[in-house]
């Protein structure tokens, strides 16, 4: 595999010109029709793909009790990422594919082309629990290309403030590592909130980076311990203490909802919202299903108040004409992608709360706000 070149540029390098692969591939696809070449190759070796992007876990490391760091080797379709962006990782759990976003923690210039993600185990979380307990070298996962606008501007500012809390450390750690690899010479303040020292994922690496780079200042704020650089929850005085210049530079923030909202409120008050860049890890909303129709349903650009009827009926009442057949749940003509929200299957009572999940409109009713990709 060609390595990602440690170029001082933001462009993602390409591995191979698509033209050079085209001709034999077209023949193979004509031979494999209607299934596609990958459907044959994956049965021999899932890492042998012509179109699909996958990754193999090559190393597993547990730096704190409730987090796990995976090193992934992507297939050659991987186009690299910009520090701060995320990838979708898909794993199979009891026969069902589950997709979650994870932000690589490594530098975008990592020489061996591998990427690293750190996953915090959530007490009731499906995927994070699964990976924490089961990830082992050799596991192959589905991967998406990197996405997201949470990344540094191509023209690096003179000073940078990176603020994180808990598992939100991942995208900003990638930014820090990338800046170090670039030889960035401006001042970087890395302000991280956690319960205490035992909770800081990748603490050793952070300390090493700060020790090796004079322009990087690591500030650890502990909310449950007094042996940190700062103590207690975020407050304006923390900024005044560690980055009094924050109003003249850019701040990158990722962390738990409480931290995010107090930082956001502070920047909004100071009229600095434009300088604050945030990434939300969007925990799945906890839904209460008491049978009462509530919430707003968005069918693409059309919105309507939830009437409690099936999504198919509500879409039609809103003047739309989605495809349907049997209207009783057997033909799957009405299947559409629910981009967000929770629905209940009226035949089985099953709740569907994952984002980007396919549901049958004719037998699902919304539970709270729901968006359908129509």
């Amino acid at each position, binding site marked *: 595999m060609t390595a990602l070149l440690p170029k001082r540029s933001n462009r993602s390098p390409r591995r191979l010109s698509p033209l050079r692969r085209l001709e034999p591939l077209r023949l193979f696809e004509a031979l494999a029709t209607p299934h596609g070449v990958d459907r044959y190759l994956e049965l021999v070796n899932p890492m042998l793909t012509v179109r699909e992007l996958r990754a193999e876990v090559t190393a597993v490391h547990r730096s704190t009790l409730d987090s796990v760091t995976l090193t992934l080797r992507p297939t050659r379709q991987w186009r690299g990422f910009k520090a701060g962006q995320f990838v979708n990782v898909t794993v199979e759990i009891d026969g069902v594919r589950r997709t979650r976003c994870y932000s690589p923690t490594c530098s975008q210039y990592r020489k061996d082309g591998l990427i690293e993600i750190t996953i915090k185990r959530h007490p009731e979380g499906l995927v994070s629990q699964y990976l924490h307990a089961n990830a082992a070298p050799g596991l192959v996962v589905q991967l998406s290309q990197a996405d997201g606008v949470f990344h540094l501007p191509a023209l690096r500012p003179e000073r940078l403030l990176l603020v994180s809390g808990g598992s939100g450390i991942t995208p900003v750690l990638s930014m820090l590592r990338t800046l170090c690899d670039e030889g960035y010479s401006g001042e970087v303040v890395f302000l991280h909130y956690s319960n205490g020292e035992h909770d800081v994922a990748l603490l050793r690496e952070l300390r090493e980076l700060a020790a090796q780079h004079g322009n990087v200042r690591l500030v650890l704020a502990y909310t449950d311990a007094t042996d940190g650089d700062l103590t207690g929850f975020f407050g304006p005085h923390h900024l005044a203490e560690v980055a009094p210049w924050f109003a003249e530079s850019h701040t990158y923030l990722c962390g738990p909802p409480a931290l995010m909202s107090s930082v956001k409120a502070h920047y909004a008050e100071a009229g600095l919202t434009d300088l604050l860049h945030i990434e939300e890890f969007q925990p799945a909303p906890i839904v209460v299903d008491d049978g009462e129709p509530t919430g707003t349903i968005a069918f693409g650009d059309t919105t309507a108040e939830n009437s409690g009827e099936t999504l198919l009926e509500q879409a039609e009442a809103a003047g739309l004409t989605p495809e349907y057949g049997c209207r009783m749940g057997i033909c799957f003509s009405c299947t559409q992608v629910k981009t967000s929200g929770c629905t209940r299957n009226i*035949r089985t009572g099953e709740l569907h709360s994952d984002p980007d999940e396919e549901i049958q409109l004719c037998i699902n009713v919304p539970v709270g706000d729901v968006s359908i990709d129509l």
Partner: protein
Amino acid sequence: MTNASITLTKDQIDELGRELDAIKLRVINDLGKEDRDYIYNVIKAQRALEVGGRASLYLGFLPPFWLAGTAALSLSKILDNMEIGHNVMHGQYDWMRDPALNSKRFEWDTACPADQWRHSHNYMHHTFTNILDKDRDIGYGILRMDETQRWNPYYLGNPAWAFLLMTFFQYGVALHDLETENVITGKRKLSENKALWDGIWRKIGRQTLKDYVLFPALTGPLFVSTLTANATANLARNLWAFSIIFCGHFPTGVATFTQEETENESRGEWYIRQMMGSANITGGKLFHILSGNLSHQIEHHLFPDIPARRYPQIAPEVKALCEKYGLPYNSGRFSKQIGSTWAKIFRLALPIGSQDRSTKPPAVTVVDKKLRVAA
């Protein structure tokens, strides 16, 4: 097959509906890794047979290799169409959220484009199963498969048309959604078929290129030998698929329904129609897999969207429910079911048996609705 009249109350029918719903719910809650592993094992077997079969044909000048290659390719196409394609396109594996086995995205190794099949089969046939003038699978628009279809001299050719349909089954299925008979009778406009034709040509083009140009050409001097093998495999699949599918709804004792009978149908009544409109075939495990578990047509029509490997598991319960409510559970050996199907094809070539439905005594009465068993 009982001929006695069965009377069920509305409460009994609702209760039957709830009992069947409960079976389905139990299966759905139990779906998991085993079901995924199963379908992937079938896929592995199918792809191995396909690759092995195509490879053997490079030695096709040696008869054992030609035969083995052709047999492997036939089995591959049968597995692809029946246990994999038909079932995946029913949404049986959508719960796995695997794009490779998604009902809306799957394509199968046959002439019929998947999207048209989903319309004509998943929606039309499975919703309006055995309702006269609504379920176009009754005779596929070209055969007389029910007494109530009015006879005309064209039907003298019933056995010949059936034989042709069987031989060219993949193309018959591909043309099914065009509703040619409705275009001829003026019920459907020709222009409605334009987009369908485009899809059919594209799919047939790709299938033909693969089976009748590229693979034969890749075997060089064995072009004709490989082409014949591929054609034979397609034919074998046609004969098999036709036979299994015709055994599903046409053996003696399977009921058909009129539109009036099925108006405002309750869930329980819908279930009853599905059970009385379908017939099972008994056989061993391999036979069931090769039939795509359509040998459990009754269970399939009750629950078209649960993985087919579950049908044999729930069959005893479904049968027990039929006994409890005195409903027929039509099941028989392959030879018996296919024999009675062909007997019907021949019998209905002649005008006999085409009495007006209202003059025929009902075999099964459900409350005040009359559900009859076609002779």
